């Protein structure tokens, strides 16, 4: 066994059933739904139920990952959850998820935050610990129930979902061949302590933020690997709206066909820390042995994590052991009106 080998041994995604359409939000704010739909390339977004949060969705995503990995949860040495909507300001999310899957007490745990990049950070660290030989398995999770202020452009896209990856050395579903991280201090989006909704730099979020880091990271990891965009069957990027990942793909030399499977945002919205990780699960649901997968996340603040995965012969055996991501996205949807949506999201509160 190559000692430096590490990769994904189990994966799963969880998307809540509730949805709200762009029209339903636009109607309330007197906005033109069609221009939002065209401008953002988003038709609807997922909404967490009133009893769902980053922790509960991450438990379900991790249960699916365990069904595919078929490992003893007691052998998991670390659990890292990346989110900008950890339910507690102080108290880890990871303890609850680890307890729910029976992975306590011999386990390391930390919650990560880096806007929308927190999930890929959790993946990066989990995988690095495996590469270093520190433990047999480690879990990296990206999940969010992101919030946009009522009437803000973000309200049309802020969505909910979680993706969980179990990393290990043996029985890999996809080997991680290369990683690269890229970041600078760029204040394009932030939320201060005690504030309910984030603030953003408007147009500033595009060129110097999303594109600079996504393209910067993408170019560096291609360089490191000596690979070309045409070597890859699949690519997935952070998807705050439909337009950005399409343009980033084009700038790096990837076709729309390569990103289509993991481009979930038109029906899902922006799941923040879950966005590119959930896109990766949709790709793993259909990828074939030998396929190469290119992934670059993005988080405001700002930075990107890049990964290159190679699918093994084992992936097809486990793809159907848990619900596919696109199945969850496209089936059993429950559509909400704006009033119910604001109640579910805690934007309006019942009198005491």
């Amino acid at each position, binding site marked *: 066994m190559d000692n430096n080998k590490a990769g994904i041994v189990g994966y799963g995604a969880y998307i809540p*059933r509730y949805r709200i359409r762009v029209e339903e939000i636009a109607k309330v704010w007197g906005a033109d739904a069609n221009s939002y739909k065209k401008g953002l390339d988003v038709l609807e977004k997922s909404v967490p*139920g*009133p*009893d769902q*949060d980053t922790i509960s969705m991450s438990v379900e995503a991790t249960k699916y990952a365990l069904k595919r990995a078929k490992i003893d949860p007691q052998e998991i040495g670390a659990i890292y959850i990346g989110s900008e909507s950890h339910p507690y300001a102080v108290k880890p999310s990871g303890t609850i998820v680890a307890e*729910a899957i029976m992975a306590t007490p011999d386990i390391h745990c930390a919650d990560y935050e880096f806007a929308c990049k927190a999930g890929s950070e959790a993946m990066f660290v989990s995988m690095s610990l495996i590469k270093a030989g520190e433990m047999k398995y480690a879990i990296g999770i990206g999940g969010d129930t992101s919030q946009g202020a009522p009437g803000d452009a973000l309200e049309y896209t802020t969505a909910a979902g979680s993706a969980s990856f179990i990393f290990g050395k043996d029985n890999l579903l996809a080997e991680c061949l290369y990683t690269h991280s890229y970041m600078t201090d760029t204040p394009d989006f932030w939320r201060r302590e005690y504030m309910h909704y984030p603030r953003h730099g408007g147009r500033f979020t595009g060129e110097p933020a999303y594109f600079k880091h996504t393209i910067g990271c993408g170019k560096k990891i291609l360089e490191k690997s000596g690979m070309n965009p045409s070597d890859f069957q699949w690519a997935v990027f952070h998807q705050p709206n439909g337009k950005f990942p399409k343009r980033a793909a084009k700038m790096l030399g990837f076709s729309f066909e390569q990103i289509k499977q993991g481009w979930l945002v038109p029906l899902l919205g922006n799941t923040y820390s879950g966005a590119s990780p959930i896109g990766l699960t949709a790709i793993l649901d259909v990828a074939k042995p030998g396929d190469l997968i290119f992934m670059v996340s993005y988080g405001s603040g700002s930075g990107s994590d890049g990964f290159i995965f190679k699918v093994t012969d084992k992936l097809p055996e486990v793809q159907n052991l848990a619900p596919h991501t696109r199945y969850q996205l496209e089936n059993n949807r429950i559509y909400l009106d704006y009033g119910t949506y604001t109640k579910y999201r805690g934007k309006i509160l019942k009198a005491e």
Partner: protein
Amino acid sequence: MSVARYWREIPRRYRLEAGKCSNCGYIAFPHRLVCPECGSRKFEDYRLKDTGKIVSFTTIEVGPTEFSDQVPYNVGIIELGDEVRITAQIADADPKDIKIGGKVKLEFRKIQQDGHAGVIKYGYKAVLV
């Protein structure tokens, strides 16, 4: 429910941990000290199956204070794969879609939270499959 009681109940609320009588196989959920079937005091750890079917259900229109902002919500008696019956909320479901005998699975959900500053309590709810 106090934080201490919630914490003590984590194994059964998060992981459906039960006790199985070593003598007659009776499954006690929650755990018991003495088997009601055979009087034995020996139990093995057992985890309930997380799928089952609806035996009976009702829709709560006026709930207790801590659940009042959730109304209307559905509560069902669920028979799990191991023939153990539990009471659980049936989440994400319009009452007209719930049927006796309908298949469900248990999902991890928020059950209750103590206001804006208190602890968040998690556990299982049933969802239609």
